[in-house]
């Protein structure tokens, strides 16, 4: 937005120091070194801000909102300062043809370099007529913008896999960007809403190094979606100890016990909500607030599995000692077997000797002379 980064910093009351801090956090979130953060700062300072085209389809704008509603007002703006937001329907001052012209201009100017960020699901039913902008369907717009994009990022669950619009019975045939853009690499940052840091980190890495973070098979950056909530849950100790909230508002709930029994989807939900706080506010996420995780990042869970149903735990790491069905118990002391063997042997030996003696002493043919003593 501004060519000289120092001006807006000062104008908004944000120091360079804060700016570096945000870059460092973003870099750390993506798993890059502090040096990378410096490079990001440099790049941003030099005005090498990535051009971003932000498309809105079937959505609630919650992802954008969460980006804007940060705890420190400066940070949201900083994020916006780190990128050159060339097209964003919500934040744009321009409207109508003016806006469309800006889109066209930016696409042309930054062809092959701009970042296409998709927010919202894309309706596919009936030729995609359920979401049209400027007379064109979402499918068309997406295909056109994505064609020349350097990187495509789907933010939020709607864009990642369909989200709420795709919930049963899915009247518009809503689906995510990866499904529309078959064959293209789409980085998905699911979440309802997605954590802004996950977006920022991805974008900055692309801007600075021209690379994308490592992704899982659903296109999710591993730095953010590499493990389940359950693996890193602040209430995990309660799960391990078998302390569960039985119902909302009961004693266990008030004491902060594990929410699994209330339907927590944490064990199957891949996200970093527990380690990277939303808007830098600790505990500002469902489990932190006492609500079970509802699995917003998972296409198989959110809006699919009922809120209070419990899920299977695929990788049972909790109390990892289980006895086998038949544990080996009891033992045989070698000393005891030795003693028993000796005694048994002695008895049998003595018995045999006695029988020999008796035979000699009182054989049927021999007259018995006298008694042994």
């Amino acid at each position, binding site marked *: 937005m501004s060519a000289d980064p120092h001006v807006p910093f000062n104008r908004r009351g944000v120091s360079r120091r804060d700016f570096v801090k945000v870059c460092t956090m973003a870099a750390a979130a993506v798993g890059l070194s502090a040096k990378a953060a410096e490079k990001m700062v440099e790049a941003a300072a030099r005005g090498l801000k990535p051009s971003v085209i932000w498309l809105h389809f079937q959505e609630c704008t919650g992802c954008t909102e969460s980006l804007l509603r940060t705890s420190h007002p400066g940070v949201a703006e900083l994020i916006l300062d780190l990128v050159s937001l060339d097209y964003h329907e919500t934040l744009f001052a321009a409207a109508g043809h003016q806006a469309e012209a800006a889109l066209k201009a930016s696409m042309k100017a930054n062809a092959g370099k701009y970042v296409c960020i998709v927010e919202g699901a894309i309706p596919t039913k009936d030729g995609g007529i359920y979401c049209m902008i400027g007379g064109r369907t979402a499918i068309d717009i997406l295909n056109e913008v994505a064609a020349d994009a350097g990187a495509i990022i789907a933010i939020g669950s709607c864009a990642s896999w369909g989200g709420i619009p795709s919930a049963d019975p899915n009247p518009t045939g809503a689906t995510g960007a990866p499904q529309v853009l078959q064959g293209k690499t789409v980085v998905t940052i699911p979440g309802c809403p997605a954590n802004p840091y996950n977006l920022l980190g991805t974008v900055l890495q692309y801007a600075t190094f021209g690379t994308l973070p490592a992704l899982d098979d659903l296109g999710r950056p591993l730095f953010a979606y590499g493990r389940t909530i359950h693996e890193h849950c602040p209430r995990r100790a309660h*799960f391990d*100890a*078998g*302390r*569960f909230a*039985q119902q909302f508002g009961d004693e266990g709930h008030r004491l902060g016990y*594990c929410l*699994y*029994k209330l339907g927590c989807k944490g*064990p199957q939900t891949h996200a970093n909500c527990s380690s990277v706080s939303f808007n830098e506010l600790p505990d500002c996420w469902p489990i932190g607030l006492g609500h079970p995780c509802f699995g917003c990042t998972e296409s198989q869970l959110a809006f699919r599995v009922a809120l209070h149903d*419990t899920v*299977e*735990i695929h990788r*049972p790491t*909790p*109390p990892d*000692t*289980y*006895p*086998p*069905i*038949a*544990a*080996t*118990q009891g033992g045989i002391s070698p000393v005891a077997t030795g003693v028993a063997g000796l005694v048994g042997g002695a008895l049998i030996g003595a018995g045999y000797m006695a029988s020999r003696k008796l035979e000699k002493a009182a054989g049927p043919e021999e007259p018995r002379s006298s008694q042994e003593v």
Partner: protein
Amino acid sequence: MGINRRTALKGLVVAGAAAAGVRRVQASGPIGIPDDAVGLLYDTTLCIGCKACVVACREANGLEADPGWSGGLYQAPADLNEYTKNIIKLYDEGGERSYMKAQCMHCADPACANACMLGAFKKREYGIVTYDVDLCIGCRYCQVACPFGIPKFEWAKVAPRMVKCELCQHRIAEGKIPACADVCPRGAVIYGKRADLLREAKDRLAKHPDKYIPKVYGEFDGGGTQVLYLSHVAFEKLGLPALGETSTPTLQRTIQHAAYRGFIAPVALYGVLGAVMFRNRKKNLTAGPGAQAPGEAGARPRPSASGRGGERGGQR
């Protein structure tokens, strides 16, 4: 089977009561399961192995922490033991895995209760098999008898008791449900009337025939148990033995009751023994000295002095 059912009932000495009992029992399924029988239903496909039930059981029953006497590890019992009335085990072989919850099965015809001399183990209210330490001698016949190996003995104690799940009867009396079922976060173990649990189990089997071994373990096994199991892994692999439909005590009881019913046979035998001996004595006495007694060694004289003990006493 009729005979078995009949003999299966306790207190057969009172034939009338038994006859009445047979009619009632036959109407309500397997032998010995009272109409108000409660129990547990454990579903291996639902269990997540969180062991909440193990912890809750320990707390609800005031069990001390297992110092690792049997397994070597503190609070990590290798099986049910004197500190553990309920345990989650893991079956993990050949790519198959399943959790397994072990506790008393609360048999319809419990072998332990059958074994117990003074009835320290007894099937009481709701069909729960309970333990009364005052009537226990510590003979451990119940341990020999139980086909599931459930009752455990306090080996480490100088004044040992038997330890076994009593279905949290103290909690049931307070209107609560057994701790394991109460705390289970997934409904893997649920508590209820046995009839309802059986219906639920069959519902699940009907709804997900692909998910389960098509059988409710405990419906008839070992004469029926009040704790029922649904599993996706063969029951034997989970340590639930193939028992057939006759209860364990049946054979012993059939024989024992045939021999001792009403204590008639022993009394009759005593009478016969006494009579034979009496006759023998008479015969021997009248035969007198020189009389022949049949025997391998052939004939021999019988000393006359060997008559009545009184005479003998005088001799001395």
